[in-house]
Each structure stands twice: as C-alpha cells, then as structure tokens.
C-alpha cells in the first residue's frame, strides 16, 4: 500500500497554504482523486485559506512600497525617536551609546526601582551617568550643571567621583525618574552639540579627567564606553538583551582600552602578544624581552573585563605560554575599574 495516505494527509495544510515544493504539490491532487476523507479535509482547509485570503483585489498591487524619498512610514518613526546625533567619528560612539540608552529607558517604565549594579536601581544608574558626564561637560563649558573645578592632583579622583555620584543619586531620588532622564539626556545632547564633538581640531586638545590625561576626542570614547556598559547593566536588570555597539564603535572602545591598559602595565611587564578576535594585535609590556605568552579575547569580553563586568578568572579567553604573564594582563585590565 504505497499510496502514502498518511504522507499526503500531513501535507494538506501546507498544500492549502500554497507552501509545497513543486514535487510534493503534484502528489496531492493525485491522492485526493482517490481518497474521499483527504479530499474532504483538503476542501475544508482550502476554504479556510480562501477566507483568510479574501476576494482577489483586481487591479491593485498588494503591498507595494512606493518608491523614492523617505517613505511616510518612516517620517513618523523618526519623529517618535530621532536618530543618533550626527557628530565627528571620535564622538560617534558616544552618540550611539546615548541613542541606545535613550531607547532602552522607556522599557523601565514602572520598573525604575529594579536593582541594577552596586546598590543602584535603574533610576540611580541614570543619575550616576548624569554625574559621570558632568566633568567633561564642565570642561567643555556646556550644560553647566556644576562649575568646572579642574582636576586637583592632591585629591584622588575616584574619591571625588564617588562622592559626586552619591550626591547626585541622593538628589535625583527626590525627583522623578523622568526628570533625571531628561537632565541626563539634555547634558548628553549638549556634549554632542559642543564644537569638540563636531570638529576634530578642538577635540585634539589633551585634558585630564578621571585621573587620565587624554585628548578630548578620547574622553568622548570613555563616555561612550561607560554609557554602553550601564545600558547593558540596565538591560540585564530588565531582562532585555542589549546588543554590543556596532563594530566601528566597538573597535574604538577596544583600541582606547588597549592603549590605557598598555600604559597601566608599564614598560617592564612581561610581554604578552594580545589579540582581539576579528581585529588587531598588540604587544603589551616590555619591548626588550621576547614575548612570553599569547592572549586572545573577544572584543565584547575584553570591554566587559575592563568595565569590571567580567573577572580575570572567568573571562572567556584563549591563552598560550606563561600563565603568570597572562594573569598579569587580565588582572591589570580588570583593575582599570574604569567605571
């Protein structure tokens, strides 16, 4: 009995939807001509699809997209959410991080007190970012939430930083999350509107912030890094996947972090060939000795390590050679405790 009754019966729904490959398509009518029960079921299913279809729409092309210009469908979308600010490449990663966090925050509606990291909830995490962007805003003379005090070398910057974060979080908890978000977004927009965000020339000026002297262009990259890491924190807390920044931005973060890691390791550390998957390689540590070990990390994992979201022990890696030299690099990267 090779009329494959069961086989054809299993195909009837796909047949009714017109979703059979040609060979199987031909098998169905042959069987229906001989099998009343299948014919009855086929008829019922076909009728159901006919009703889903509705009548043929003579003369009107279904679903054609009108050509040319920004379609009406998209102007409404762009009104609801403007795209990332258009800035010079060195500030584009920050513009993207700001856009990514701004799009995430509506998802926190009604859940602002969800614990995120440290002892911060979502509201406090945004307040922290508001505080964390202040020094650069002060230095560039935009936003002006606080006067720029300069960086006092006698005071440990992390103390000042932690004190200011605690202060702003306390202030902001007395306000609504929406107010805090509005202030954070306004300060971010002011930073992105500054000449230093639009023009590489003023951005080349070096200045010391968070204990490190870098061109303003790189301080924008640091801001991007922190905004993304905290967006990822908030996403995790809310159960939403936050994809890593697009590759061109991610690589900017990686390159800056490698440079700072190199400085932190100093010129005498045991040399390690450090590679980031899909990109470049660097020799970290002493230039006077042969390479002792090789270490490869994924770009996102490397950023999460530098951002304090992976521990040196558990960060996924490929390593060969002197394990002590590898551990030294991983621990130094984690100790940057950038955020």
């Amino acid at each position, binding site marked *: 009995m090779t009329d*494959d009754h069961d086989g054809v019966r299993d195909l009837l729904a796909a047949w009714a939807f017109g979703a059979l490959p040609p060979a199987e398509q031909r098998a169905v009518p042959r069987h229906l001509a001989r099998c009343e029960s299948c014919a009855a079921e086929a008829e019922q299913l076909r009728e159901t699809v006919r009703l889903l279809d509705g009548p043929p729409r003579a003369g009107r092309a279904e679903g054609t997209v009108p050509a040319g210009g920004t379609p009406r469908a998209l102007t409404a979308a762009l009104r609801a959410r403007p795209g990332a600010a258009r800035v010079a490449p060195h500030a584009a990663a920050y513009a993207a991080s700001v856009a990514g966090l701004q799009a995430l925050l509506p998802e926190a509606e009604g859940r602002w007190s969800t614990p995120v990291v440290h002892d911060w909830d979502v509201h406090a995490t945004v307040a922290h970012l508001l505080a964390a962007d202040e020094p650069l805003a002060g230095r560039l003379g935009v936003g002006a939430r606080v006067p720029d005090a300069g960086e006092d070398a006698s005071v440990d910057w992390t103390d000042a930083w932690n004190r200011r974060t605690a202060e702003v979080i306390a202030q902001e908890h007395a306000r609504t999350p929406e107010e805090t978000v509005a202030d954070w977004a306004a300060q971010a927009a002011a930073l992105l509107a500054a000449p230093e965000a639009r023009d590489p020339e003023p951005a080349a000026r070096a200045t010391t912030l968070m204990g490190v002297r870098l061109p303003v262009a790189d301080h924008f990259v640091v801001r991007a890094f922190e905004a993304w890491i905290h967006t990822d924190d908030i996403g995790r807390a809310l159960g939403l996947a936050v994809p890593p920044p697009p590759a061109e931005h991610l690589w900017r973060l990686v390159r800056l972090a490698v440079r700072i890691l190199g400085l932190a390791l100093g010129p005498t550390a045991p040399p390690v060939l450090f590679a980031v998957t899909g990109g470049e390689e660097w020799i970290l540590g002493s230039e006077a000795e042969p390479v002792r070990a090789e270490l490869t990390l994924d770009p996102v994992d490397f950023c999460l390590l530098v951002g304090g979201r992976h521990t040196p022990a558990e960060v996924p890696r490929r390593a060969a050679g002197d394990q002590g030299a590898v551990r030294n690099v991983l621990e130094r990267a984690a100790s940057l405790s950038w955020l």
Partner: protein
Amino acid sequence: MVVPVESTGDTSVQLPVDAELHRRLVYGDESALAEAYTAYGELVRRVAVRVTRSPGAAEDVAQEVFAQLWSRPYAFDARRGSLRTWLSMLAHRRAVDWVRSEARHRKDARADDSALHAIPDAAPGPDETVVDRERSLLLHTALAELPQTQREVIHLAYFAGRTYRQAAVELGIPEGTAKTRLRTALRTLAESLADPPDPALERGA
C-alpha cells in the same frame, strides 16, 4: 514519504544579518531603519492589506510597525526569532486591531446614519459578502491568538510565500515539525469558523 533534506543554506545567514541590523537600530542608525523598510516594508503591507482590505489602513499599520521597531527596538530579540517573522506578526496583530476598532466604530456609526459611509475604504468590495468579511476577520483574530510557534510558520509559509521546507530552515526546526504546526494551526482556524469564540463578532454579522 518525505525525506529530510539538508538545509538549502540560503536562509541560514538570516540571523547574523538580523542581529547586525538590530544592533544598528538600537544605536540609532537611521540608515538601518531605511534598510529594514526596504527589506520588509512590502511584507508588512501585504499582511496588513490582506487583513484590512484597505491600502490606506495598511499604510497606517506599516507606519505603526516601523515606528515601533525604531522607537522600541529592544522589543525585538534577535536570539528568539527572525526580524521577518517578528515584523510580519506585529503587522498582523496591528491590522487585526485596526479592523476590530473600525468594526466597533462602524457599529457606533450605525446609530448615526450620516456617518455610515465615513469609512468606505474598508467596506466589503462587490465580490465580498458581509458574511465573508466577518468570517475572515474571525479567522484573522483566531490566527493572531495562535501560539507563537504556530504563528511563525504560518507567517513564513502563507504571508512570506515560503515553502514549508524553507520555513523550517528559516526557523531552525525539523521539516516534520513545520508541517505539523501548519496542520495544527490551520485545523484550529477551520474549527474556529465552525465554533466562533467571540459572541460580540457574531452580533455584528
């Protein structure tokens, strides 16, 4: 009788492409929105027209669908399905909502005869009886309420024009599973016609 075949491979790159596009949407890259519209705008309208029977309404639905994709991008998770099925299902849901609210509106307007022809766009065409129109809405409502695993296959096989085999590859499920889901889904829909679940819709007939 159906032998499992190796995947054709032509849809297997879909997920990384979606993930990349989604990443750019999240980070506010407007060109990603335009790309999503170029890739899926036609499908979204096709789904919406089929449910609403109205190009104008389909345009509104497309507008809502892409506004949602862009302004609430985290609602889509590239690890849990393709952008194609996600947008198709969103368009369908929005289109069903549109027809239902339009039907309510129409009913309200019936009390006020002057407003009866206010929405001629979605009125049944000459080939379509009012009863067919009601039954079609009933079916689309039932479709929108099917379990997601069944809806995904229907959206690919029916709205997006895939064979059940292609749909299986795109969803990463065995072909037999795709066939079974289509069958279970379509039988549920056929039965919903025999046994309408929503008395409010019956009153409207």
